[in-house]
């Protein structure tokens, strides 16, 4: 019992000491403020360091990310539509009746496919057209006879006019048998077979087509402006087979190779007349699509054709709106 009383006394004296200490410490609380404020300052600094680190990481992330809008996709859509309608027009002209209505219906059928295709990618693509924006024209062809290349002299002895009073022309191509061409050089080619473009105000331009005398199996094209000395534009190797000269597309091709002429074969101005000149023994075919209101040679076959179609194309995403109206006249220079 006495033992318990002693413990109680000791505890009582301990409590009184604790109370003294507590009183002393509460009277000097200002000493802890230094540590508290410093801790807070350090905490703010550490948080800022974390934020800066975060910003730096985010910056690196953004720097290696593609953040541009869908510009290439929009241009791709336009290209696909233009390419598709170009092929549609040319197919209709060469293998169909050249009907405006047929082309119009085909464009109408193409529009939902454009919508659906883009919807799969989460974007909006539209194709629309006004029926009045499809222009008619005429496809002129100097054709083969019984599957063989036709002599250009059949339509006229020395020179003859392919088309006169020309408004607009596109897809002008000439397929020629190279072994029937005269062999010469560019400078001397002024008297050989050629295609002459002219109008009332500009100088005549003639594309002379010849076998290059300096090379074997090499067809070349040279241009003479207003009868001056011709200047070579481009040439192509051939194995004796027919060479296609795409005059509005600036391209020479055989079954084996294609050469782009970096200098335009078509004149800088809009010609009124296209003639074949200096015809000798040359053989081949020619084809051109012209708009309405023009005259052409009697030897040339003419069929109705679609000259051009104008369509509205739009491409939309959350970040991009692109709307354009494209006039599609395949092969127009």
């Amino acid at each position, binding site marked *: 019992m006495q033992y318990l009383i002693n413990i109680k006394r000791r505890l009582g004296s301990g409590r009184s000491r604790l109370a003294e200490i507590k009183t002393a410490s509460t009277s000097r609380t200002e000493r802890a403020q230094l540590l508290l404020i410093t801790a807070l300052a350090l905490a703010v600094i550490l948080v800022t360091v974390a*934020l800066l680190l975060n910003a730096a990481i985010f910056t690196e992330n953004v720097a290696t990310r593609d953040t541009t809008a869908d510009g290439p996709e929009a241009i791709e859509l336009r290209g696909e539509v233009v390419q598709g309608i170009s092929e549609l027009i040319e197919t209709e002209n060469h293998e169909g009746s050249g009907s405006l209505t047929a082309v119009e219906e085909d464009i109408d059928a193409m529009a939902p496919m454009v919508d659906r295709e883009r919807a799969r990618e989460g974007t909006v693509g539209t194709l629309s057209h006004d029926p009045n924006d499809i222009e008619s024209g005429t496809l002129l062809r100097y054709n083969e006879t019984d599957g063989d290349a036709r002599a250009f002299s059949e339509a006229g002895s020395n020179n003859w006019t392919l088309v006169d009073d020309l408004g607009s022309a596109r897809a002008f191509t000439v397929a020629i048998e190279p072994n029937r061409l005269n062999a010469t050089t560019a400078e001397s080619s002024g008297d050989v077979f050629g295609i002459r473009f002219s109008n009332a105000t500009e100088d005549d331009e003639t594309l002379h087509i010849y076998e290059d005398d300096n090379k074997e199996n090499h067809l070349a094209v040279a241009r003479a402006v207003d009868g001056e000395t011709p200047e070579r534009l481009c040439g192509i190797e051939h194995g004796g087979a027919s060479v296609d000269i795409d005059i509005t597309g600036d391209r020479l091709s055989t079954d084996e190779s294609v050469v782009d002429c970096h200098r335009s074969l078509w004149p800088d101005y809009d010609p009124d007349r296209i003639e074949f000149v200096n015809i000798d023994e040359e053989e081949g075919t020619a084809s051109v699509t012209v708009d309405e209101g023009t005259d052409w040679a009697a030897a040339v076959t003419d069929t109705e054709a679609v000259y051009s179609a104008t369509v509205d194309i739009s491409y939309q995403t959350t970040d991009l709106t692109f709307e354009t109206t494209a006039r599609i006249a395949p092969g127009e220079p």
Partner: protein
Amino acid sequence: MRRLRADRRAVSVTVGYILMLSVAALLLGVVLTGAGGLMETQSQQVISDELTVVGNQLASNIHEADRLAVVGAADAESSGDEPTVELTVRLPQQVAGTGYLVEIDRETIVLSTSNPDVEVTVRYPETDTTLASTDRVAGGDLRIVYDADDDQLEVRS
């Protein structure tokens, strides 16, 4: 009184506290000063990096809009109908916690912040379509619009 003089414990504790507080204050002062300076340098570096990235993003989008404008303008030449090109560039409102300004003039994008004072210049190749000079606009989402009447691109906030 005699008892108080004889008691050395309080003196020891007081001196101990004073010394401890002095050393702690000195140490913490050095740490805070050093950390503050480091923070400012790092902050400027991060802002500079981020502004460079933002400038390059804007430049690539300007070229994107330029390509679309060229295609649209070429179509307009044959069809006669004006194209629409409107491109939104998603840029951050702030870089490293501070707002910034964007200014465009002659193939140069100048991005700047005022606190801390950082200015970054990003140059980009000439565009085919003229880009109208832009007065200082606040950072954030920007729109690049093709003005078909004046045949030029404009950057708007």
